[in-house]
């Protein structure tokens, strides 16, 4: 089985904030991490390989620094790593990102492609399904369980709002995964050593034979117009007194507002 896992290096978004006065990002010392969902995708890929044999390739599109993320993935147990990096990729929206990644995957060759449900910087969840469309293969989102996998067929569970769907698909297929799917392993010491020395395959726009007009900002139908701080404001009333008194006041207010 040829397994490709798409990982993205992201700023740890819990710590990216905006300064409401100047409308600018405050990112003092924000660390970069592998997108958390993608770590679960990688774990799924490693487990499939353990079951069926084959090879796990991790792929990322990003600046040269994204190599760090690939080495972390190698330390976890991925067999090889590909870094798609080129000035021409700058400014890609999900359309152009998915197009670029899919071109690279066609070169690498894949039976199963795994993505995280979404990346925590953009939170779009679009790159996976868009890639599947470009490659003309089926996709299934929000995988919470892999029930069965054979060389030409897969049965999985898709998490929905009110339960789950059990779905059967032909291969090749692209899956996007949620955290419930598994508990990612820790990198082993041996893995870390090997990852340090491993060679990372680099691909440029020319390597994937992509049309220039489909890449980066030029290939992106959407653009960011501006960014700003979310507003949180409301009238509020702090209730004072003993616990009894506060609750009596609250209940009175709620009755007046016809909430209860």
């Amino acid at each position, binding site marked *: 089985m040829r397994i490709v896992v798409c990982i993205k290096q992201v700023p740890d978004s819990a710590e990216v904030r905006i300064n409401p006065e100047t409308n600018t990002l405050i990112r003092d010392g924000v660390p970069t991490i592998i997108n958390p969902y993608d770590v679960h995708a990688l774990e799924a890929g490693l487990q499939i390989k353990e079951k069926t044999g084959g090879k796990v390739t991790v792929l990322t599109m990003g600046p040269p620094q994204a190599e760090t993320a690939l080495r972390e993935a190698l330390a976890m147990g991925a067999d090889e790593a590909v870094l798609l990096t080129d000035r021409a990729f700058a*400014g890609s*929206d999900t359309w152009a990102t998915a197009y670029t990644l899919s071109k690279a995957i066609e070169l690498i060759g894949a039976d199963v492609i795994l993505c995280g449900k979404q990346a925590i910087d953009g939170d779009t*969840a679009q790159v996976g399904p868009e890639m599947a469309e470009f490659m003309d293969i*089926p996709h299934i989102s929000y995988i919470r369980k892999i029930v069965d996998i054979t060389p030409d067929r897969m049965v999985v569970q898709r998490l929905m709002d*009110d339960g789950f769907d059990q779905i059967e698909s032909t291969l090749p297929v692209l899956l996007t995964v949620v955290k419930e799917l598994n508990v990612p392993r820790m990198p082993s010491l041996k893995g870390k050593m090997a990852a340090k020395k491993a060679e990372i395959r680099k691909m440029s726009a020319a390597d994937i034979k992509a049309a220039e007009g489909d890449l980066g*900002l030029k290939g992106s*139908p959407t653009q960011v117009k501006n960014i700003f701080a979310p507003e*949180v404001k*409301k009238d509020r009333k702090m209730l004072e007194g003993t616990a009894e008194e506060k609750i009596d006041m609250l209940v009175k207010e709620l009755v007046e507002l016809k*909430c209860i």
Partner: protein
Amino acid sequence: MYIKVNRDLCSGCEACLQSCPYDAIVMKDGKAEITELCQLCRACLSVCPEGAISEVREASDAKETAQGTGVWVFAEQREGKIAGVSLELLGAGRGLAQKLGTELSAVLFGGTAGDAQELIFWGAEKVFHCDDPLLKTFNDEPYAALLAKLVVEQKPEIVLTGATPIGRSFFPRVAAKLRAGLTADCTSLEIDAETGNLLQIRPAFGGNIMATIFCPHARPQMATVRPRVMKKGEYDASRKGEIVRVSAKGITSRTKVVETVKEVAETAINLQDANIIVAGGRGMGGEKGFQLLHELAEVLGASVAASRAAVDEGWIPYRHQVGQTGKTVGPKLYIACGISGAVQHLVGMQSSDIIIAINKNPEAPIFSVANFGIVGDVHEIVPLLTKKIKDLKG
């Protein structure tokens, strides 16, 4: 397009370095310089006190604007029930269509002719309806293929759907096929008065930042919109409209939904439809603490929700999580107990009509969105509140 620093104007203040989320600006000889890490996000443009940073447009930026008219709402149904967000979008879509002087249509896959008629009562002037059995239950490939085919034939300028598991899974396929821009999980939509472009506003970076996205050239402009942020339109059973039957001939699928399983916890029954929600966070201290919330919920006829911290602790299943990575809710009453009010939680509940916050820390940010705040220990306040309401109701 690219971003440029005018070296003559740059004073070397380094304000732009701070603003760049991608570390793409460096100082060289006392002046700022944009490196190849630049993702063209424009965050630096507004911070430069000297106005030294600007975007440079190139001839190749301009593409022919594709034609198209009409606003479309994809109406999502699951087991014959139309999703609430679809009705909200018919309300919002009507406003957009009026501003553009164009028509509002709905697209319905599965469901009955009666359901299509309902969409007209909710505001659609036209409904494209396909009742082929292949589309009865949601399945990405046939849904994407048929919607893309319809869009190519009819050329709407805007296509919207709910940011539900269904909408967020198959809309990207449609956008990829059509070479259309797609903006995920929008919380507000506006029409740019000057250009007529759709301005799509959405949270990013876990809700810490809002961004306005637009598609200057490509058509249609597509977006998924978060449930419970827009108001439903007016229901009018005398409204007339046209139902266009659509055939699914030639549409196939490589995936098959074998089984649909419901897993609904007693008190979690559709948080999104709940009138009253009692929510707990890490401050509840454990499953025992949540038991207090279940008791309060019972006397109020409310559903129980939770912050991510409480879900991560395993005190309550993920299905109850509210916020950026959970559900967005908009009940009449939201009672937040032992929740700090991190922005990722707030984005999921701040459109609630009335918010009550109970927290022992008077500085907790949850109080900034609350209508009523009680500083105190949840283990004391919650049982007391349950008792008072029980007494009141007799």
